[in-house]
Structures are given as structure tokens and as C-alpha cells.
């Protein structure tokens, strides 16, 4: 039967109290000093150490978000997991215990906020004269709560160091590290009832969406003069145990899972939103890329230009943020309520046509080679495309419309082509 899970700090203590385990653990850490897994595997002693540790609670220990000594727990998790996994994984397993609150709880929270007498008035449009701006109301709710107001003022005054007016030059460039720390404090110390409302408020106009985008003071916490390459950014993130853990958690909890109703693993919006917020204040800080209120696009501050031969991996990594329907649905669900979200139906993902072309917002499913019938044309390089005969010749009677379309057609004598948007 599977082991009972303990946190990695306890697991290290338990291992250190067991002479056999603690010596193996020491050996494995020495093996990993060289960071070359293959040499480690080739060394007998290292392999034996690995085997013993696979039997110990260290093997599948986890950490809890916001636990005491969270960083040490994460450090010991990664010290063991660098040994168990094969080199740099595209998706790493999250060190955090899964968030067990189901999405309905956090969104009941969102709807409760609406009815809470203290902020009830806040949630309805507070100013009848002006267009409804739920992000403005979220700021109001925060300003009326002492903890939230204090922490918000702290991170804004830390991040907003650029006060120059005349020439637009920065007099005192913002201290990004300190800004990130202040942001982490804000999201750690203030109740999600206030922080989520400021981050995921639903918008009906650009002013509201721009206020939402400005929540984390992007000029300091997010943007930089030069956009790093996304794989470089990932490498920087993975060199820091906290960022690495939060990134793994994001991949784990926000990975688009199309066959599910919500597009989220375990239908758990809350876990995805928690992971998103967990990345804010790290090297992989995320933010809305623009003030669009119709179509949310979230991204880290990086680009796939000059990725060389790793262009594809970079695009893949970037699309996990920019075209993530689980995250998008989770944000809509928080804003409009779990079931009434305008995108309750999963919106599948469209790969970017070319690295420099903006992703097509209307989603199209993407190709996986497993879907092909035996006789279907196995797409190949030019040379043998011809060999596959007519099935693979160019279909010249269908024009490639700008809007990718589904064509459905009644089986009638006369075959007309009817074009439908992809659901």
C-alpha cells in the first residue's frame, strides 16, 4: 500500500534518525554535487543510495504552501528529486501538496463577497454615475481593510520608486528584488478575499482591464528593458528552489486538461489560481499582457526570439501561459461565478502559426499523430509526400480562410460546404 505522505523536513529528520538512510542521503548529496546524473547512475554507491532513499519517506515527501520553513522543505525536496528524475524535465512534479479546496469554495467566496454587508455595497457598482469597475471596487475593499491597505501601500511604495516626471527618466530605478519581496508579502499576508478580487476582477471596459494589469506595478515587478529568452528565464527560475517549486506547481495545477469540463486538472480552479498567485514576486512573475477585457492573455516577460534550435520547446513553454484555457477559465469563473462563466465550455488551444505571429484567439484543436487512421496520409517531408498519392495532394478547392473553420455538410446529393467556427 502507498506510503503515508510527510513533509520533506519531517522526512529528512526521519531519514537522519535512521543510520542507514542518513548515510545514503549523505552519499547521494555528494553524488549530486557534480550535478551530472549519468556519472551518478554509473557509480555503484550512488545507485545503492538511490535505492535506499526510494524506500524512505523522502521519496514522495511534499511541502505545504505557507508552512513554517517552507523554503528549507522545498530545498530538501529538490535535493532528493534532482537525483530521481532524468535531467531537465519539461514538466516537473510540484513539491506542494495538492490544494484540496474545490473550485466551488473559492468562488462561493467570490459570491459571498458580493453579499457581505461590509463590502456588499462595494460589490455593486459603487458609483451609479460611472461604468461598473469591479477592479476599482476591489481596490476600495482593500483600502477599507487595514491589513490589506497597509500591505498594498507597502508594495506600491516599494515598487513605484520611479517618481520622475519631467524627462521620464528614472531618478531612482525600482529595486526589483525588494519589489518582488513586498508583493510576496502582500499575497502571503492578505486574505485571498481581497487579493484575488484585485487580480481577477472581471472587466467590461479597457479602464478596468488596465487597472487590473497595473495591480502588480508591472513597470517594476514585471517588465524589464530587455526581454530575456523564455528558456533562459526558466533556467533562472529553476536555479531558485522557491521559483522552481512555484513553476512546477503552476504546470501541475494549471495544465490545460481538455477532456475535463473546466479544462483544469481535477476540475480545480482554486489550485490553478493559487499557483498563478504563487508565481507573482518570483523571477517567473506573470501578468496580463494588455488591457483587453474580452480576451485574457497571461504571460511571463520573455520571448522565444533567438532560441536557435530550441524554438519549439520555447514556444511550447510560452504557450503554457499565453494559451492556457484552464487558467483563463479559472479567472473568468472567479470573476463571473463558477458556472456562469462566459467560457464555461473549454476553449481549446491553437498553436501559434509562426513564432512571430500573434496566437489566433479563436481556438482550433491541434494535431497529434495518434489520431491518424492507418490509411490516412502520414505527413512527412516533401520527398515521400508524393508517394502517398491523391490523399495527400493539395486540396485546391478549399481556400485557407483567415478564420480556421469547421465545415459540416448534410450528406445530400449536392455537396455544399458549410463553414462553422470551431467549438
Amino acid at each position, binding site marked *: 500500500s502507498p506510503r503515508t505522505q510527510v513533509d520533506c523536513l519531517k522526512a529528512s529528520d526521519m531519514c537522519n534518525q535512521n543510520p542507514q538512510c542518513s548515510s545514503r542521503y549523505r552519499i547521494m548529496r555528494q553524488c549530486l554535487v557534480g550535478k551530472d546524473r549519468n556519472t551518478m547512475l554509473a557509480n555503484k554507491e550512488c545507485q545503492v543510495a538511490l535505492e535506499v532513499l526510494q524506500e524512505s519517506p523522502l521519496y514522495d515527501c511534499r511541502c505545504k504552501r505557507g508552512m513554517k520553513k517552507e523554503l528549507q522543505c522545498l530545498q530538501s525536496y529538490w535535493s532528493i528529486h534532482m537525483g530521481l528524475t532524468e535531467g531537465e524535465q519539461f514538466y516537473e512534479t510540484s513539491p506542494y501538496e495538492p490544494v484540496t479546496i474545490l473550485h466551488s469554495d473559492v468562488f462561493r467566496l467570490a459570491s459571498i463577497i458580493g453579499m457581505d454587508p461590509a463590502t456588499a455595497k462595494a460589490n455593486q457598482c*459603487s*458609483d451609479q454615475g*460611472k461604468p461598473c*469597475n469591479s477592479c*476599482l471596487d476591489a*481596490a*476600495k475593499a482593500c*483600502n*477599507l481593510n487595514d491589513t490589506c*491597505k497597509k500591505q*498594498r*501601500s*507597502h508594495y*506600491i*511604495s516599494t*515598487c*513605484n520608486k520611479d517618481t520622475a516626471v519631467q524627462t521620464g527618466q528614472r531618478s531612482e530605478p525600482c529595486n526589483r528584488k525588494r519589489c518582488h519581496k513586498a508583493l510576496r508579502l502582500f499575497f502571503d499576508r492578505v486574505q485571498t478575499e481581497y487579493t484575488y478580487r484585485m487580480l481577477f476582477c472581471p472587466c467590461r471596459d479597457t*479602464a478596468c482591464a*488596465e*487597472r487590473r494589469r*497595473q495591480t502588480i*506595478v508591472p513597470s517594476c515587478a514585471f517588465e524589464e528593458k530587455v526581454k530575456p529568452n523564455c528558456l533562459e528565464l526558466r533556467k533562472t527560475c529553476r536555479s531558485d528552489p522557491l521559483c522552481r517549486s512555484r513553476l512546477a506547481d503552476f504546470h501541475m495545477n494549471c495544465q490545460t486538461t481538455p477532456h475535463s469540463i473546466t479544462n483544469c486538472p481535477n476540475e480545480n480552479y482554486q489550485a490553478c489560481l493559487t499557483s498563478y498567485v504563487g508565481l507573482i514576486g518570483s523571477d517567473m512573475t506573470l501578468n496580463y499582457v494588455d488591457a483587453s477585457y474580452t480576451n485574457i492573455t497571461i504571460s511571463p516577460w520573455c520571448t522565444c526570439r533567438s532560441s536557435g534550435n530550441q524554438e519549439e520547446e520555447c514556444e511550447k513553454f510560452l504557450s503554457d501561459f499565453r494559451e492556457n484555457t484552464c487558467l483563463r477559465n479559472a479567472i473568468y469563473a472567479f470573476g463571473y461565478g463558477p458556472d456562469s462563466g462566459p467560457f464555461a465550455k473549454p476553449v481549446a488551444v491553437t498553436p501559434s502559426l509562426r513564432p512571430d505571429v500573434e496566437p489566433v484567439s479563436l481556438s482550433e484543436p491541434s494535431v497529434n499523430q495518434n489520431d491518424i487512421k492507418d490509411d490516412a496520409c502520414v505527413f512527412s517531408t516533401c520527398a515521400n509526400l508524393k508517394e502517398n498519392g491523391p490523399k495527400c495532394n493539395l486540396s485546391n478547392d478549399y481556400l485557407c480562410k483567415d478564420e480556421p473553420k469547421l465545415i459540416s455538410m448534410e450528406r445530400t446529393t449536392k455537396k455544399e460546404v458549410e463553414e462553422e467556427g470551431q467549438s
Partner: protein
Amino acid sequence: RACSLRHVDVTVSDLGLGYQSDETLRFKYCSGGCSTHRRNYDITLEYMKNAGFLKADKSGKPRDKPCCRPTAYDKDISFLDNNNRYHTIHNVSARQCGCV
């Protein structure tokens, strides 16, 4: 009512500091009477003012009553203005009041 901390919820624009922002915040101020906090000093000063013992000068007459004033302020208040620029203002809202 004795000198105490009061509050009113206003928009940042309503603070009258020139910032244009629809964000709402709680402005706390001190108001109320301080008669119970008078000292011998106040009694003496009032008597001597009325008796004409004190030379008046351009900077006006001395004050012979305690004032209900803030004894501590909220350090900072930050907000996003209507041009989407952040500002932080200091010592705007009272945190504690006293008769001084």
C-alpha cells in the same frame, strides 16, 4: 463628544490634494472636545490673556485650550490614479487622536 477618531469614506479626488483617482479610501480625522484635558497652564493663560498681561505680537494670541489633534498618522496611502499611475501619499489619515 470627546476628542476621538472619526472617519469618512471618500474618493482620492475628494481629498483635495489634486490627484484624480476614483479609488475610495477611509479618511480618519480627529474631532471632539478637550475641555476635560485643561491644565493649570490653560487656566492661567486664559486668565492672563483676558487680564492683558501678555504682549500681543504679529504672530497673534497664544492658545489657552488643548487641541484635539492627531497624535499618530497612517504612514502611507497608495493608489492608482485615473491615468494608471501609482502614487503614495504620507501623513494624510490620522491613526490616533489626543488633546494636546
